[in-house]
């Protein structure tokens, strides 16, 4: 004790930075803080909630469970990206023609989508969205034609719209699969594989061998999707959007609800930091005060606090939290309050009290009492500043524990129901069998963020520990 550093935050920070671990910790922390600020500014809270809770409708143009785009760097194959074609927007890849049928109050709308498909893998999905303002029984009838790069033309389906904003899930349509299978098995008389899909037949090089094995190579080139709609009523509009979903998307990929993961990864950062820091700070300081009171007054106050602590330390922490989360509607603040309440009477009280017992016998405390310092003043201005330096590394090192706890609760489905957090991504990944399906990015991304956070605080904690406990210093 009595070192030159006590009470001088600046020099502690400077010294912390002089250690490699300290500098690394501070570096990562600055990065995470910048990420948090970016997240909060770029995606305001309400917007983030809306985007995360908006379910599928919001992200219809995104592929499901697509890996992040940077996966491409590690793949020799060219992985398909999503292609969106919309007749309502002008584009060289879209053409639309309307032919009125004189005297019949009918018209023919022909929409042609052209796109180049030169990826090495099949797309993940193909959907067609229709937009028509028909009313009553006058639903447009659409003939869907598919033209392969080899100029082979296939009539996939004749489809009557069931609603003004109907959609046709081409890739999972049984009738289209049947149509295509029939078409090709007439052409190639082989036993067709059970593993045929619409996408394989639409995008693959079809021949007898591939039909039999179910393994298709992608036919690269320009495809055309031609929609010929018979529209009743000259005033009735007809438009369509075709989406060829890829297998990679965005900087962080998407989940089972097509949501881009970066929303939750970004927003998880400020939540994790705020949760961990608040929990750790409040717990440590409340513990500090309680432990000091316990050590300073002794007697029955001390006994009471110590017995409460001992009982609380024996109680299982997680089951309690789970119970509370199950019985009450909790948001992140309630969880935070419960976590703090359960952590206050923890081991920190024991170690701090031991320190206080030692410090309260120091002559300077007696001197303070001799010139009339009150108990309150002695605790706050004479004892706490003395025990603060050894307590701070513990405070910093405790942060990841609380971050993990929050993630663990979210993983168990007991977290805040609205906020997008890292734990929630893990929960989704788990319930959707991410690892079983080989969707490693889904688990590894939030895990990496969690690890980064704990590295930052652990490194900083080590450095601070070395400063306040000079015995830990390397030679």
């Amino acid at each position, binding site marked *: *004790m*009595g*070192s*030159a550093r*006590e*009470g001088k935050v600046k020099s502690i920070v400077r010294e912390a930075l002089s250690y490699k671990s300290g500098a690394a910790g501070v570096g990562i922390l600055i990065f995470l803080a910048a990420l948090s600020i970016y997240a909060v500014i770029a995606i305001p809270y309400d917007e983030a909630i809306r985007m995360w809770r908006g379910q599928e409708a919001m992200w219809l143009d995104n592929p499901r469970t697509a890996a992040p785009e940077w996966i491409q760097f590690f793949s020799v194959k060219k992985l398909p990206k999503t292609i969106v074609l919309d007749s309502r927007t002008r584009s060289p890849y879209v053409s639309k023609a309307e032919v009125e049928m004189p005297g019949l109050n009918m018209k023919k709308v022909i929409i042609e989508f052209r796109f180049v498909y030169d990826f090495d893998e099949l797309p993940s999905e193909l959907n067609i969205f229709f937009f028509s303002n028909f009313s009553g029984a006058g639903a447009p009838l659409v003939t869907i034609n598919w033209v392969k790069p080899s100029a082979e033309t296939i009539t996939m389906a004749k489809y009557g719209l069931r609603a003004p904003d109907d959609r046709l899930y081409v890739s999972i349509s049984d009738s289209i699969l049947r149509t295509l299978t029939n078409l090709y098995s007439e052409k190639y008389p082989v036993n067709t594989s059970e593993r045929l899909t619409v996408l394989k037949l639409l995008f693959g090089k079809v021949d007898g061998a591939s039909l039999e094995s179910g393994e298709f190579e992608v036919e690269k080139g320009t495809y055309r999707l031609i929609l010929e709609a018979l529209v009743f009523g000259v005033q009735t509009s007809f438009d369509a959007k075709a989406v060829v979903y890829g297998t990679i998307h965005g900087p962080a990929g998407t989940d089972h609800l097509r949501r881009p993961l970066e929303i939750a990864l970004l927003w998880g950062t400020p939540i994790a930091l705020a949760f961990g820091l608040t929990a750790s700070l409040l717990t440590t300081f409340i513990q500090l005060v309680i432990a000091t009171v316990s050590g300073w007054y002794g007697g029955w106050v001390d006994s009471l606090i110590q017995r409460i602590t001992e009982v609380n330390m024996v109680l299982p922490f997680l089951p309690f939290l789970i119970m509370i989360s199950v019985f009450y509607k909790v948001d992140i603040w309630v969880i935070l309050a419960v976590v703090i309440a359960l952590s206050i009477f923890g081991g920190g009280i024991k170690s701090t009290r031991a320190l206080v017992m030692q410090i309260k016998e*120091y*002559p*300077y405390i*007696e*001197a*303070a*009492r*001799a*010139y*009339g*310092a*009150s108990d309150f*003043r002695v605790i706050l201005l*004479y004892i706490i*500043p*003395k025990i603060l330096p050894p307590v701070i590394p513990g405070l910093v090192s405790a942060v990841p524990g609380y971050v993990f706890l929050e993630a663990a609760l979210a993983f168990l489905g007991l977290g805040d129901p609205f906020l997008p957090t890292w734990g929630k991504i893990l929960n989704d990944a788990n319930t959707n069998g991410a690892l079983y399906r080989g969707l490693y990015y889904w688990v590894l991304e939030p895990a990496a963020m969690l690890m980064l956070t704990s590295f930052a605080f652990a490194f900083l904690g080590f450095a601070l520990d070395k400063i306040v406990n000079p015995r830990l210093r390397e030679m």
Partner: protein
Amino acid sequence: MEEGVLRVENLSKWFTIRRGLLAPPLTLRAVDNVSFELRRGEAVSLVGESGSGKTTLGKTVLRLYEPTSGRILFKGRDVTNLKGKELLWYKRETGLVQQDPYGAMPSFMTISRILEEPLIIHKIGTAEERKEAVFKALEDVRLTPVEDFAFKYPHMLSGGQLQRVAIARALILGPSFVVADEPVSMLDASVRIEILTLMRELQEKRGISFIYITHDLSTTRYFSEWIFIMYAGHLVEKAPTKELIREPQHPYTQALLAAIPDPDPENRKRYREVPPGEPPSLINPPPGCRFHPRCPYVMDVCRSEEPPVVEVKPGHYVKCWLYAKK
């Protein structure tokens, strides 16, 4: 003895030692039935060996310990059971200088803050005035130039300098009574006399009553008017300094004085009579006179009954059966 600043009547401080759940607690009689008076502007040396209860007596008088029994009268007021604001008044009127100057300073405060603390607690002056008072106090203990010391932390000062700060802190509230608990025993021999002289000077100049706790009889004659000898929780002899040194009455005082080394070559031929044995345990003190197991003049009565306090000469009191009027 005329009415003094401080009057202590039959003061006792017993500590209770708990030994566990079932074992009965023990009582340690650190200070037992002590009475004395202290006059304005006079210094008393409280002398005794380690464990004799002299520090406990000093701290109990300052109300750092709750007295077990007896009364403390300060300026005519009973301060034994003061609480709250009134106790704060007593704290303002008293001061303490401790043995260990390093431990006596909060290491995280600057010297100026350390000296300002008592002023803040007693709500004295504005920040400006307090700063002036701090500088003045540093000047008084000759830590000059003041600016060089005011903003340093305790670890940057030497033991002697820190003890000057401690003296400044004890005196900054303008007390009329100060206890100095072995103020120089942890200091370098070279600065001891300096510190003692400074204390004596300030004490005389300001008319402060002083209790100087020490085990070193040799320095007491220069720095105090009175010497009180303490043995095993009892005050065994109280006398004016010169008188006590010249004519020690209590057998323990005589032994203590005889033990002071005197740099005289003749001394090696002289036989020094040292009372055999150790000071008694204060947990279970011997009945009667506590010195009787070691006393060369022990009588039957010493073993069973506590000796009375006898005034052998005006102002010279001895707690011994040898001087009791039969």
